[in-house]
């Protein structure tokens, strides 16, 4: 038992936890931005796949790593644009549109991959992002060495969380985004465009999700293969509620999940053979559900979430 707890004091454990948390953080930030503006984006799972695929493919075809990230973000933005068109302009059901986008983006990515590489059995590899390894960070006590082992995208994700927290809390834009998720009529009455705010939030949010996907193929691994996203998008949807739509709480939520996941991986090696590994795989999900139940009881959903807004109707 004590060995199970000792894991928590190993630097490698925290390195893994943060690595696992990074794509979840990016996805959660994207989801919460859209939801703050009143649009649920269940396209997230598919947008993860599409970002993972296109970012990686761009690099494989010779683009730089950062260009690959940009390509992934642009892919996400395009799907975001589609989602916004369906849910804002056409005011369709956000659930249905989102699930449709997940199916479309997932299938489209796999199809494009097969078309690009019809005969390969081994997935082609790229040279992924390397850990930053900044010397000053290495020598910072406590978290320094752990953070120095992370790739630049992790820092991008943390930066995005801080920026988003600031924008939502302190800027007129943030006010408007929060207001449009609560009562679009209030926003319209102040001369702001409900549609522009929602489009913006969904498009930027989807870009963040896609970068989360790109992290998988360009940082965590070095190749694209089927099923690699594996429900991470859905985890983000739950983490958004867990974080009560706050970017900094999203950091905590993603870390918590990352830690559970890293922990169970290590437990498997400890207790392997005795306990079936599938049970360990369940651990982060079970604990997340428990944490979510506690957090979601008091969840304060944006009031206009999932309510289509049609101008001039009552």
């Amino acid at each position, binding site marked *: 038992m004590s060995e199970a707890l000792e894991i928590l004091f190993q630097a490698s454990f925290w390195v893994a936890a943060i690595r696992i948390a990074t794509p979840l953080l990016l996805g959660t930030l994207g989801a919460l931005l859209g939801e703050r503006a009143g649009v649920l984006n269940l396209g997230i799972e598919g947008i993860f796949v599409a970002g993972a695929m296109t970012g990686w493919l761009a690099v494989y075809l010779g683009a730089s790593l950062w260009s690959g990230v940009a390509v992934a973000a642009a892919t996400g933005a395009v799907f975001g644009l589609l989602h916004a068109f369906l849910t804002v302009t056409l005011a369709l059901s956000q659930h249905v549109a989102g699930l449709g986008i997940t199916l479309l983006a997932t299938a489209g990515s796999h199809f494009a991959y097969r078309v690009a590489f019809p005969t390969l059995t081994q997935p082609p590899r790229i040279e992924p992002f390397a850990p930053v390894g900044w010397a000053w960070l290495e020598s910072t006590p406590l978290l320094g060495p752990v953070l120095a082992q992370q790739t630049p995208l992790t820092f991008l994700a943390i930066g995005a969380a801080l920026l988003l927290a600031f924008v939502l809390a302190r800027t*007129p834009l943030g*006010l*408007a985004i929060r*207001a449009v998720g*609560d*009562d679009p009529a209030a926003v319209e*009455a*102040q001369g702001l465009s409900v549609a522009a705010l929602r489009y913006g939030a969904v498009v930027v949010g989807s870009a963040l999700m896609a970068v989360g996907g790109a992290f998988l193929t360009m940082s965590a691994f070095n190749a694209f293969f089927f099923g690699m996203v594996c429900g991470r998008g859905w985890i983000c949807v739950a983490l958004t509620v867990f974080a009560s739509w706050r970017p900094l709480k999203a950091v905590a939520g993603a870390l918590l999940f990352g830690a559970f996941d890293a922990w169970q991986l290590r437990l498997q090696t400890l207790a392997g053979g005795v306990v079936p590994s599938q049970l360990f795989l369940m651990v982060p999900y079970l604990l997340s559900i428990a944490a979510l139940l506690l957090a979601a009881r008091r969840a304060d959903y944006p009031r206009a979430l999932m309510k289509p807004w049609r101008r001039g109707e009552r």
Partner: protein
Amino acid sequence: MTAEAERPAARQAAGGARARPPLLRLRGISKRFGEVVANEAVDLELAAGEILALLGENGAGKTTLTSILFGHYAADAGEVLVADQEGRLVALPPGRPEAALEAGIGMVHQHFTLAHNLTGFENIVLGTEAWWRPRPAPPGARRRIEELARRMGLEVELDRPVGQLGVGARQRIEILKALYREARVLVLDEPTAVLTPQEAEGLFATVRALAADGRGVIFISHKLAEVEAVAERVVVLRQGRKVADRPLAGTSRSELARLMVGREVREPIRRPRPPGEVVLALDGVGAGSGRDRIEDVTLELRAGEILGIAGVSGNGQAALAALVAGLLRPERGRVELLGSTAALSSPAAAVRAGVGRIPEDRERDGVVGELDLAENLALERLAAPETSRLGFLRRKAMRARARRAIEAFGIRAPGPDVPVRLLSGGNMQKVVLARALDGAPRLLLADQPTRGLDVAATAFVHERLLEARERGAAVLLISEDLDELLGLSDRIAVVHRGRLAGPFPSERLDVPTIGLLMAGHEGGLPAAEVAA
């Protein structure tokens, strides 16, 4: 005063009228929603410094007209012209609130446009600052708002999320929002519906000051006394058409009512009637939480009697209403209906025991907007034989009943199958009333039964309440409209901070006295009358 002295003033007024340039002109505005004609070829002009009252019964198209002016809706035909800085009238692009705001039009919406998750301050400054700035408003904004609020008598907590504020506070924020932008044309759509008389008085002073400052004001209200207090000119809409446009001076209230409704409106009169047995009894009751709590309330309500409850909203009325509706159990003391405490133990029990309920917020608690008229009427008796048999709804019987209610209550609706959400406020209230009175209730709870209703609908509701009393029902009437309370109630109690003063026989009360009691001055009443 001599004729000599009067003349300059008169000349000034006449000269003033000629010199007053138009600020706003609506030309041939028409708007339909499906079959409903909301506006039909409406022309309207507003001069600088003028206060114009826009009147009309529920559903006459007042809100639609002002929403077109503000750009929420685009008109099917017609145009909106607003004076620019040089005084030339320029057409506004239709359907663009930002253009209306830019042109100096401010609007206080009938259905508040406030984000509940933002504070009052944030709601007021929303959309006034460049989006990328690292602050929600310029440094001086806060002081300006506080200053404005103080001057206008609209003081309100600016740092609490709006969702935590009461309706009165929300109304004040909605007004401050328009004033903060220094609108040249201010549209007030029923701004006093939830204000106390004192607050309304403060608002009128503001409106007059704005007009004296050269701005134009359009004021919508169903309360004719208010209209007479502030407006100079009146425009009346009936079924979307303009039927009158004239100075208010020389137009009587009954004439205004006739213009709005198209026929004479007569307020019913309460006739003396000996009260019967005790129907509702509260003994030392404490219940509720927060601002809506009552403390140590003792009260008896008899058959054939209307007991009025006066008070500024949020002083415990909600707790009292919830107790009577079976939604709240007392923490202390006893609540008995016809001698039984079990009768009010749940809403279902209350309905079974013969309590008819008209809730304060009809759209939230009174009707289910998506259900049709017939279904809404049947909601309280789903298991009753006239509604269902063996678990299946008897659609035909329900529709027949709805048709009878439409007939008896004069509900203006296309038929029993219309979703109630599409009805106007007054007609929705008639549906609630029809359901509450169905089955001849022993006790009728009427919580703000005429809020937002026009003169004719108000008179209709009053008539029905008196009819129920005549029949021997006990009526608990909670209202902020003191004229209504004085006109209908046999006795009136005043609630302040959860405690009850009275009840007093209503003949011994008048508006100022009730006003004092509402503000918590128990000493406002001579001891002898308190004893009565």
